[in-house]
């Protein structure tokens, strides 16, 4: 091999360097050895993080991407290595997270012949990627990597899979590493139509009870400052989605916090009573719609989204604006007048006073208490990762987010096992910040093996296991809608999580009594020799409220535990 040429694997590493990659999360294997070899032979500065399971790698990459806003890279082998990433890729796809997954593959001439560890990962991932490649020629590598990063990070972001047969990664690459892209079908014009902006401004000017719904799209486009300027100038209250937490400060007087199934009562009441809804970058997920036919049915609905396929998918808006959220909001600020919303805001403040989020600090230990105390002790500044279930909803309610990139939660996919590895990924991306993951005992056990990764790298993460020995959210549904017939939700046989942590060399704390919450959490926050775990033995059968049963109208929200028997929900899950 001459000086001008390199192996395909080396070309991959060089191209990743050119894209500014800091970390690769992954797991080695037979068909990906040439790329792992290139990590050594190229003497790259890219740091490789060896995880314990490929799903962990994808969630770490996901957490890294959400916490930094930068695309993340996963490197895994063929067959089961590749299929283990499916959940993580789907999670990233549902929540529009930029991720590049490089998978090793059997040699080209064995494809389709059931070779050892051969899986058609290109075909299997098709419904859950933004785009994907099966690399046929070593010289295509530079172009494909460049296209992948461009596709993953522009427009509505998403995961891109690159499947690299072993002969391709071991082959000779003579192509220019700064290859031209060739994706004529990929459109990146997200400019704003001025007439539409004027139309939105006009509709806002006529509105007496306007409401902004801020979603993940606003976050991704970096519209936080613009959104604040818009809301403050026009005096419009703002509610945010689960993934929109932090795009508008939840402690701001104009904020109503999170809406939806377990959102605040006042945000949901605002949705019912507004006469105009300005949706900036939310896809009208079924968790916030209740019954779609009745959602904001008398209000003017304006939908700003970068993805045209989201327009009219769930809700038909009166005014459509397919554009980048920040660009659109910046433009809108120029034209929107100061609105007379004093009466409307007072009305909503009345709801805030009447229906606050609340819990009891006495009696049995509550998840809400722990989250609320952690919020106070950390001054709301932690980067919070959650798993999925009751604790996730309480964390969303009680850990207010005031800045973007500080809320990492699997929204669309609802992937249990996400929390710990996502928190680890975030800690790699932002080593100087405080990182906490709130996880349930169920989800934690799906990926707890990544404690090894956290321990090895001495990551300063606080792992708060909210342990109710139940799959609490399903148990809650069974209690409320299935006459308390619990089925498949009792997690008897949980290990001792503190001993488990200690076996990885991780400091463990137990928390059992409400009176100890502050002290134990403060000890955990003060601990500064790598990760620590706080096992919190919480009330087993607490329920999350407010709650809008799936498929029910928002008006039918349960603010408190119901006294009557409830029908089974009609909506999805």
């Amino acid at each position, binding site marked *: 091999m001459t000086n001008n040429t390199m192996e395909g694997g080396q070309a991959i590493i060089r191209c990743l360097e050119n894209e500014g990659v800091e970390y690769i999360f992954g797991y080695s294997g037979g068909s990906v050895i040439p790329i792992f070899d290139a990590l050594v032979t190229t003497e790259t500065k890219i740091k490789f993080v060896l995880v314990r399971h490929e799903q962990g790698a994808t969630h770490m990459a996901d957490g890294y991407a959400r916490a930094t806003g930068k695309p993340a890279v996963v490197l895994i082998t063929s067959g089961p290595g590749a299929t283990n990433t499916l959940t993580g890729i789907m999670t990233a796809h549902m929540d529009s997270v930029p991720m590049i997954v490089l998978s090793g593959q059997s040699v080209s001439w064995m494809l389709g012949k059931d070779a050892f560890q051969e899986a058609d990962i*290109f*075909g299997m991932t*098709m*419904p859950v990627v*933004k*785009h*994907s490649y*099966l690399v*046929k020629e070593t010289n295509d590598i530079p172009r494909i990597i460049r296209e992948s990063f461009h*596709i993953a990070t522009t427009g509505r972001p998403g995961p891109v899979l690159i499947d690299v047969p072993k002969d391709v990664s071991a082959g000779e690459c003579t192509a220019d590493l700064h290859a031209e892209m060739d*994706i*004529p*079908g*990929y459109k990146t014009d997200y400019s704003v139509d001025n007439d539409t902006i004027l139309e939105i401004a006009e509709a806002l000017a006529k509105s007496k009870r306007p409401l902004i719904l801020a979603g993940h799209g606003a976050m991704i486009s970096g519209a936080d400052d613009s959104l604040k300027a818009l809301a403050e100038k026009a005096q419009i209250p703002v509610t945010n989605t689960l993934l929109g937490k932090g795009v508008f400060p939840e402690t701001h007087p104009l904020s109503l916090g999170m809406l939806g199934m377990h959102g605040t009562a006042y945000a949901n009441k605002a949705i019912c009573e507004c006469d105009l809804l300005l949706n900036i970058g939310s896809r009208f997920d079924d968790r916030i719609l209740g019954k779609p036919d009745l959602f904001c049915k008398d209000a003017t609905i304006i939908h700003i989204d970068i*993805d*045209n*396929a989201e*327009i*009219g*998918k769930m809700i038909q808006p009166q005014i459509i604006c397919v554009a980048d959220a920040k660009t659109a909001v910046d433009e809108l600020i120029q034209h929107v007048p100061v609105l007379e919303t004093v009466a409307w805001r007072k009305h909503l403040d009345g709801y805030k006073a009447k229906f606050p989020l609340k819990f009891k600090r006495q009696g049995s230990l509550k998840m809400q208490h722990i989250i609320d105390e952690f919020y106070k002790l950390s001054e709301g500044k932690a980067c919070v990762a959650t798993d999925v279930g009751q604790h996730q909803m309480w964390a969303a309610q009680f850990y207010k987010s005031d800045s973007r990139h500080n809320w990492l939660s699997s929204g669309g996919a609802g992937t249990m096992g996400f929390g710990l590895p996502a928190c680890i990924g975030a800690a790699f991306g932002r080593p100087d910040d405080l990182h906490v993951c709130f996880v349930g005992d169920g989800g934690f056990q799906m990926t707890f093996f990544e404690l090894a990764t956290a321990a090895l790298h001495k990551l300063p993460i606080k792992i708060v296991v909210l342990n109710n020995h139940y799959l609490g959210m399903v148990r809650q549904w069974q209690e409320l809608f299935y006459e308390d017939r619990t089925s498949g939700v009792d997690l008897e046989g949980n290990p001792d999580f503190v001993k488990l942590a200690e076996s990885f060399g991780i400091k463990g704390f137990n928390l059992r009594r409400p009176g100890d919450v502050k002290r134990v959490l403060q000890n955990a926050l003060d601990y500064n020799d790598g990760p620590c775990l706080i096992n919190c033995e919480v009330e087993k059968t607490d329920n999350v409220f407010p709650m809008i049963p799936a498929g029910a109208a928002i008006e039918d929200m349960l603010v408190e535990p119901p006294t009557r028997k409830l029908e089974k929900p009609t909506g999805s899950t």
Partner: protein
Amino acid sequence: MPNSDKPMHTLSVYVSNKPGALARIAQVFARRGFNIESLVVSPAVDGHFSRMTITCSGNPTGLDQIIKQMMKLVDVLHCIDHTFDKSVVKEMGLIKIAVDSEGRSEALQIAGHYGCKTVDLTPDSMILQVVGNPAKIDALEEMIAKFRIIELVRTGKVVMSRGQNIT
């Protein structure tokens, strides 16, 4: 045969000629419960691209979402619904019928009426080639059914916009 409960739609799709493009497009339909009735794929003038004509059945509101989802695919340059425009729509059919010397002249008379070519002839069968709009092929099929149809193969619709309109 097309499902008569749900309207038929004709779409033209212009895509990069890359592996997986067809599978991605097929998934957009399958995921949303649309049945592809016919599909024609061929290279475009520029060989880097392919033309697809897709005929499908399903409810019209779902179709709007399907077109948008197809447009989202990186490989798709454009997708146009030709269901209600006056584009040129053609299809070719090959019909093999069982016919001997006794019925041959009547079969040929029917074939002649529809402008068919006889592309294969044996003592007890013939293959008719018919080109035209799909309704014409349907009509021929009905008329020729008095002879036993051994096999019937249709290409599926191809569509092209008239004048300056793009397909």
